[in-house]
Each structure stands twice: as structure tokens, then as C-alpha cells.
């Protein structure tokens, strides 16, 4: 069930009404929201409900096993085994065929008579996200961030809660489980902000991301040899805006829906293309994943301890695995390696600057230097998106080779796609308190008119967005990860 569909609209209205009707019965409310989440997930393919349920049950039992261990060493062993099982399941579904390909190619190269078979499996929607939620639960329990294991029903809701189930944001167990235990306050629903997020998300997905994909990006990336350098450049910018709008739309809608049901989700995007460095970019892009990787991968690897070499190694490993997480394809590995490599370069340059002035951290760039840094960071990120979007390394190579064809006139861009690219880019530099400002304006209305007025605007916005929508709605890009 996709968010921008009438099916989901009806589903959500029923869930909203029933969840608030059950607000006085916490256990009933949790059970109902869990059941609704399973319906939402089973809408794609009911068979994967067993995977979701099995993963939850395993993590529930593993959580109890971890806290029962009496010595730190045994607790560490228990959490390591449990995390390994989670990652093993994820790896099986995502990387079994990729591994077979790699082994077969290597064997052919070495002349060895090895041939592994292929499973040709469809990767279950959202498997990465519910696996990450499971790992977050186990590690938070091990670290003591969670004081005691969750009840089975609470854990079921934490792992399956439908707004974040298939594409995030990744909500930490220590952040969400306490919310499940609280009684929701019917006088404290952040509805205006939620509506703004949902409307903005619908517009970004249904209009911006869909049209950039269908009218520009898909055609150019499918056959880059047909296009000149200017078209390739516009398609690269177009994809940068498309993936931002697509993914941030999903998480904005998820945050808004959760808010209407009385839950708080973390911010996942913060105008990432205004970043003045790659380090800053990763603090603004898919924040819940980058902070997850920092806390559950980079820091356990040693983080920035142990000197410059180990710090750089840990950065590279984190970004390579972060790249590979996106899918079983060398293009994602290259994408991760480029980000990791540039983070290492940035770290070394900053370290040098810091040493020069005798501080442990270099001061931030200001003024025109920051402007240049923003332009450079944006173009580096766009360059890496070429690998991310290309179906194979060979296509990425042809795409890059096309930047030599400057004499070919552009044919792919249209006024609509140019407007969408420019508008999205401009939105990155809007004031950070823009939502609060709009909200302040809305709330000047008399209290009695506020509900109907907000509703009328939301209804009108939905119709206007639908009127501009292309035929059908493409799935969100991050569903495949």
C-alpha cells in the first residue's frame, strides 16, 4: 500500500478513528495498531508477514537472553550472535545472488570449475528497515539505553509500526518504546505541523519526483549515449532532486502520520544540499541511517580512537558497508567508496587545518568560502549519484564518457523539469523555521474556524496534487533497499 493512494487514505482514516477511540485502553490500542501495521505490510505480499513476525519473535527472545546473561562477556557474546542472525537473514535475501555472481566471476577469471546457483528471490519490501529496528532494540538493551526488554506486543508495534515500516525513518528502540507505553494525549496532537509535512511530502513525491523521473531522468539513464553533456548534466541534477524529493517525501509523510496518531519520529532530512562539506551532508541526509551507522557500526569499529589511520579506516568501512546496504550491486559499492574516500580526504584536510591553528577541530568556513564549499559538495554528491542511479558500472561509465559531448544540443529538458529542479534546489535555502512560520500564520485564525479551515486546505491540496499527478504512482525509491 503506497502512501499517495486512495487505498491508503481510507486505511489511514479508519486507523486514525479506531486508534484514538482506543486511547483509554493502551493494550487494545497497541494491539490494534500492530494488527493494522500487519495489514499494511501484508498488502504487498502476505507471505512476508511470516518473515516480519519471525524476526520480531527472534528479537524478543534474544532480548530476554541478553539480559539474562550474568557476565559482560556472555552478554557481549549473546548480543553479537543475535545481531549476526539478523544480519544473516538480511544478507541472505539481499546478497545471495550477488555473492553467487561474484564467486562465479572470480572462479571464471581464475579458471576454477566452480558454479553457484541463483535463487532469483524478490527482496522483501522494507527488510533492511525492520532488521535495523531489531538490531537497535538488541544493542540498546545490551548498552543499557533500554533498561528492560519490551513486552512482545510493544516490540511487535515497534518493529512493524506502519508509517516507518518500509522506508524509515529508522526510529531507535530507546526513542520509540517509551512512547508506546505512554497514554496518548488527545489534547496534544501536532496536527497543523503534521498536515504541512504530509502535504509537502505528497507534492514532493507525486509531482516533483514522479515527473523528474518520467520526463527526464529515466530516459537519460536508460540510454546515456543518445544525449549530450548538457542533458547528462541536467539528468544528474534531476536525479539529485528526484531522490531527495522521493525519499524525504516518504519520511515527511511518515512523520506526519505518526504525529496524527500521537507518536514522535526523529527528523530524517534537513535541507541536505545546503551542506558545506560531506560530513555536514551526512548530518542532513537520511539522518536516522547515518546516526544509526555511526552508533552501531562506526563507533563499535573504534570510531575516531586509535589515531588517524584507524579513524580513516573506520570511515571507509562504514561508508562501504553503507553503500552495499543499498543493494547488491557494484555501483553501490563505488558510491560508498567515493563517499568514504572523500570523508577521509575532508578529515585529513581538517586535521591539517586544526593542527595549523593548534585546535582539535578546524573552524567552520564562512562567507564566500562556505558558498564555494556548498557548490563543491553539491557537485561531488551529484557525481556520486551517477553511480547510485546507474543500473551497472558499464552504464555509469558510458554516462560519464558522455560529458565529453559538449557540442550536442540539449533535447531532454523541458520547462517543467527545469522548474522542478530549480524549485527543489531553491527550497534547500529556505529558512529553517519555515514550517513554524506557516503554522503561526495558520493559527491566527479563530479557534472555531481552525479545524474546518485546515481541513478545507488539506482537501483542496490533495485534489490539486492529484490533478497534477501522472498516471499511477511509482513506488518510492527506498522501498527497494
Amino acid at each position: 500500500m503506497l502512501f499517495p493512494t486512495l487505498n491508503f487514505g481510507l486505511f489511514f482514516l479508519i486507523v486514525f478513528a479506531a486508534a484514538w477511540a482506543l486511547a483509554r485502553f493502551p493494550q487494545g490500542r497497541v494491539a490494534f495498531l500492530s494488527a493494522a501495521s500487519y495489514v499494511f505490510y501484508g498488502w504487498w505480499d502476505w507471505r512476508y508477514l511470516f518473515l516480519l513476525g519471525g524476526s520480531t519473535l527472534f528479537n524478543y527472545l534474544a532480548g530476554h537472553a541478553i539480559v539474562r546473561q550474568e557476565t559482560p562477556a556472555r552478554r557481549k557474546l549473546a548480543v553479537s550472535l543475535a545481531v549476526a542472525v539478523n544480519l544473516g537473514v538480511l544478507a541472505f535475501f539481499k546478497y545471495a545472488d550477488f555473492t553467487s555472481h561474484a564467486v562465479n566471476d572470480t572462479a571464471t577469471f581464475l579458471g576454477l570449475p566452480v558454479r553457484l546457483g541463483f535463487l532469483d528471490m524478490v527482496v522483501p519490501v522494507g527488510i533492511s528497515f525492520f532488521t535495523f529496528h531489531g538490531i537497535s532494540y538488541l544493542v540498546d538493551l545490551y548498552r543499557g539505553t533500554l533498561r528492560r526488554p519490551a513486552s512482545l506486543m510493544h516490540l511487535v508495534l515497534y518493529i512493524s509500526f506502519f508509517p516507518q515500516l518500509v522506508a524509515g525513518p529508522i526510529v531507535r528502540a530507546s526513542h520509540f518504546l517509551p512512547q508506546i507505553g505512554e497514554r496518548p494525549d488527545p489534547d496534544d496532537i501536532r496536527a497543523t505541523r503534521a498536515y504541512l509535512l504530509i502535504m509537502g511530502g505528497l507534492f514532493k513525491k507525486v509531482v516533483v519526483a514522479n515527473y523528474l523521473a518520467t520526463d527526464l531522468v529515466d530516459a537519460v539513464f536508460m540510454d546515456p549515449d543518445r544525449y549530450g553533456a548538457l542533458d547528462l548534466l541536467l539528468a544528474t541534477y534531476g536525479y539529485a532532486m528526484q531522490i531527495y524529493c522521493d525519499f524525504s517525501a516518504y519520511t515527511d509523510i511518515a512523520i506526519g502520520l505518526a504525529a496524527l496518531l500521537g507518536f514522535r519520529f526523529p527528523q530524517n532530512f534537513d535541507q541536505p544540499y545546503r551542506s558545506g562539506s560531506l560530513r555536514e551532508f551526512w548530518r542532513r541526509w537520511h539522518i536516522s541511517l547515518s546516526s544509526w551507522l555511526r552508533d552501531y557500526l562506526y563507533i563499535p569499529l573504534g570510531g575516531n580512537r586509535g589515531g588517524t589511520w584507524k579513524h580513516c579506516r573506520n570511515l571507509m568501512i562504514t561508508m562501504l558497508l553503507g553503500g552495499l546496504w543499498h543493494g547488491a550491486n557494484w555501483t553501490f559499492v563505488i558510491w560508498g567508496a567515493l563517499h568514504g574516500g572523500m570523508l577521509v580526504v575532508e578529515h585529513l584536510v581538517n586535521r591539517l587545518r586544526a593542527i595549523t591553528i593548534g585546535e582539535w577541530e578546524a573552524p567552520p568556513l564562512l562567507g564566500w568560502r562556505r558558498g564555494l564549499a556548498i557548490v563543491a559538495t553539491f557537485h561531488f554528491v551529484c557525481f556520486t549519484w551517477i553511480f547510485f542511479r546507474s543500473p551497472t558500472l558499464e552504464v555509469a561509465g558510458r554516462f560519464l564518457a558522455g560529458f565529453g559531448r559538449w557540442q550536442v544540443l540539449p533535447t531532454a529538458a523541458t520547462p517543467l523539469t527545469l522548474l522542478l529542479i530549480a524549485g527543489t534546489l531553491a527550497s534547500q535555502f529556505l529558512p529553517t523555521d519555515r514550517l513554524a512560520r506557516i503554522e503561526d500564520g495558520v493559527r491566527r485564525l479563530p479557534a472555531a474556524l481552525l479545524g474546518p479551515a485546515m481541513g478545507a486546505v488539506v482537501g483542496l491540496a490533495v485534489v490539486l496534487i492529484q490533478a497534477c499527478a501522472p498516471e499511477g504512482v511509482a513506488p518510492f525509491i527506498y522501498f527497494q533497499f
Partner: protein
Amino acid sequence: MNAIPTRRLSVPPDAAPTPPPVRPRYNPVEVIEGAAPSRLRHVALSLGTATLVALVLGAHPLGDWVNGLPINPVTDRLSGWVQTWQDWTDAIGAGRLYTGLQGLFRWFQGLRL
């Protein structure tokens, strides 16, 4: 203002201050932090109004949705109701906003450089 203060380090690089170790920390920013609260009855009223406005102005996509449902006696009857509703919204002119905007957008989409 923009200049980055630089000076020669008077100590060997090994003696330069080192960054403190990064530790797990999780204090996420919440987008709804600081947002104004609403009461449930206001939210319910706004969702009801939104649904009504969408039904009146968006009868055409509603028809498309019903026509995409599996065919059975229930959806047949639903289709009839939606058709009647669509005719009524067309008669009062409410459907023109949708079709007019859709036409305008398609025209703009069709423009070439």
C-alpha cells in the same frame, strides 16, 4: 570575518591536541518539536472537512479509483453511486477545478524548449 586564522604550529604535530573520542549519543531532533497542539475533536473535524472537500472537488479521481477495483456486485453498486456523485459534482461545476487544472498542467508539461 571570512579569514581562517592560520599560524605556524609552534609544537610538533604529535603534540597537537587530539579530538575527543566519538561516543554513541542519541538525542534526535523531532520535526514536530515546538509545534502547536490541537485537540482531537478539531483534528477529527479537519479530517472530516478534508475528506468532504476532496470528495466534492475530486470526484473524477474517485471514479478512476472505483473503476480500478475488482469487479463484483459490491463494486458494481459502488461504481453506480460514484457515477451519480460525479454527475452531480459536474452539474454544480465542482469538477471543473480538477479538469481545468489537469489540462493546464498537461499543457505546461507538453512545452518544449
